[in-house]
C-alpha cells in the first residue's frame, strides 16, 4: 500500500472555502499569509490540490462512462423500436398478402362456378344441323320398293348403319342414282364416327355437282355440314355460303343461321 497520506480532515472546510472562492477578501488575505508561514497548512493545501486534481480526472472519466452507458441504452431502445416497427410492417404485409390471395382464390372459385358452360361439339351439331326428313311413304310406295321403305323406316328410327346396309340392297333399277348416292351420304353423315363423316363427303359431293338433280341443293347443304363436322372450316364456309345465297335451297335459312353464329369460326 502507499505511504500514509496527510490527514486533511481538520483543514478540509477551510481549504474548500479558499479554493471555491467563498472567503471574504480579508479572510483570503489572512489565509494566504498563513499559507506562507504555516508549513503544515501548506502541506494540507498541497494534498488538497492533488486530491481535487485527481477528482477532476475521475469525474471526467466517470462522466464519459455514464454518458456512454446512457447513450448505449438509448441506441438499444431505438433499435428495439425499429425492429418492432419492421416486424409490424412485415406482419401487415403478410396479412394483406393473405387477403389478396384469398380474394383471388374466391374470385377464381366464383368464376369457375358462374362461367358459361362451353357447348360440346355434339350439342352445337344438334343445334345447327337440320337433318334430312327422308322419303315419305307415298314417294317410297312400299309395295313396289319394300327395301327402300325398310331403309327409310330404320333411318327415322335412328338405326343408321342397318339403314345403310338395307339401302345398298335396293336394286339400282328401282331408284335413281342421285337418290341412292344422296341417302348413302345422309346415312353416313348421321352416324357418330369421324370416318363416317369423311366417307359421306364423296357421295354428297357427287350429287351436289349434278346440277340437273333436284337433290343437288340439299346435297350441298349436307356436304357443307359434313365438312364442318370434319373440322374443314374453309370448305364448310364456302359450301354453306353457296347454300345461303341460293334462294331455292330449302336449307338456305339453316345455312345462314350457322354462318352468322360463332359455332363456325372465322377464317
Amino acid at each position, binding site marked *: 500500500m502507499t505511504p*500514509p497520506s496527510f490527514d486533511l480532515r481538520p483543514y478540509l472546510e477551510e481549504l474548500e472555502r479558499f479554493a471555491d472562492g467563498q472567503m471574504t477578501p480579508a479572510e483570503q488575505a489572512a489565509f494566504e499569509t498563513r499559507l506562507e508561514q504555516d508549513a503544515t497548512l501548506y502541506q494540507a493545501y498541497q494534498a488538497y490540490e492533488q486530491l481535487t486534481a485527481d477528482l477532476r*480526472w475521475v469525474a471526467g472519466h466517470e462522466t464519459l462512462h455514464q454518458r456512454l452507458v446512457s447513450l448505449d441504452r438509448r441506441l438499444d431502445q431505438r433499435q428495439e423500436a425499429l425492429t418492432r416497427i419492421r416486424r409490424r410492417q412485415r406482419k401487415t404485409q403478410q396479412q394483406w398478402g393473405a387477403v389478396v390471395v384469398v380474394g383471388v382464390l374466391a374470385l377464381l372459385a366464383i368464376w369457375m362456378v358462374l362461367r358459361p358452360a362451353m357447348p360440346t361439339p355434339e350439342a352445337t351439331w344438334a343445334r345447327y344441323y337440320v337433318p334430312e326428313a327422308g322419303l315419305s311413304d307415298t314417294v317410297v310406295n312400299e309395295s313396289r320398293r319394300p327395301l327402300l321403305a325398310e331403309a327409310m323406316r330404320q333411318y327415322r328410327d335412328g338405326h343408321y348403319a342397318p339403314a345403310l346396309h338395307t339401302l345398298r340392297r335396293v336394286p339400282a333399277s328401282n331408284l335413281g342414282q342421285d337418290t341412292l348416292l344422296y341417302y348413302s351420304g345422309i346415312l353416313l353423315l348421321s352416324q357418330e364416327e369421324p370416318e363416317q363423316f369423311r366417307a359421306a363427303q364423296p357421295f354428297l359431293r357427287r350429287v351436289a355437282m349434278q346440277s340437273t338433280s333436284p337433290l343437288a341443293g340439299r346435297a350441298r347443304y349436307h356436304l357443307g355440314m359434313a365438312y364442318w363436322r370434319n373440322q374443314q372450316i374453309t370448305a364448310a364456309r364456302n359450301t354453306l355460303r353457296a347454300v345461303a345465297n341460293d334462294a331455292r335451297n330449302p336449307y338456305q335459312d339453316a345455312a345462314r343461321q350457322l354462318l352468322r353464329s360463332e359455332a363456325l369460326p372465322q377464317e
Partner: protein
Amino acid sequence: MNSPQQLAEVLTSLRIGNQSYLLSFYEQNRDLFARWARRQHQLTPVAAHELLRTVLVKFYDQVADGRLTKLPPDVRAYVYGLADEQIRSAHTTEILPKDEAGRRQRLLRLFRQLGLDCQKMLMYFYFRGYNFEKVAGKMGFANANVARLQKAACLRKLYELRMRTEDAGR
C-alpha cells in the same frame, strides 16, 4: 473529421472536457464495431458494446492526462487496436496487483462507492465546472448555499472513504 486541423481541434476539445466527439463516434460505430468484435473475438453484441465503451473511456483518459498528445490520423483503426490490446491483456494477464494500481484508479473505485447524487454533484462541479447556483438548479436544491454544503459533504465522504481504505491497507 479527417483533416489534420480537425483532428487537432478534436484533441483540444476533448482536453477541455467536450466529450461529444466520442459520443458521436460511439453512436456511429457501435454496430460496425460489434460485427467486427463478433468476427474477430466471438463477442456478443452486448459484450462488444461494453468493450467499445471501455476503450473510448481509456482513449479519453489518455487525452485527458496528457499521454496522447497527437490524435492518430485514423481514429477508428486506433480504437480497434486499443480493443485488441484490451482483449489480449484480459486473456493473458491477471488483474494488476493492488500496489501497482494508480492513485487515480483507486480514487475512481472509491468514487463509484458514493451515492449517485454525490457522484453527480462532484461530476457537475469538478468536471463540468458548474457554479453552485447551476449545481443547485440541476440537483433541485433550494439555493447555492445548499449546493455548497452538499458538495462539501460529498467531498468529505470521499476523502473519509480514502482514509478508511488506507487505514485498512496498513
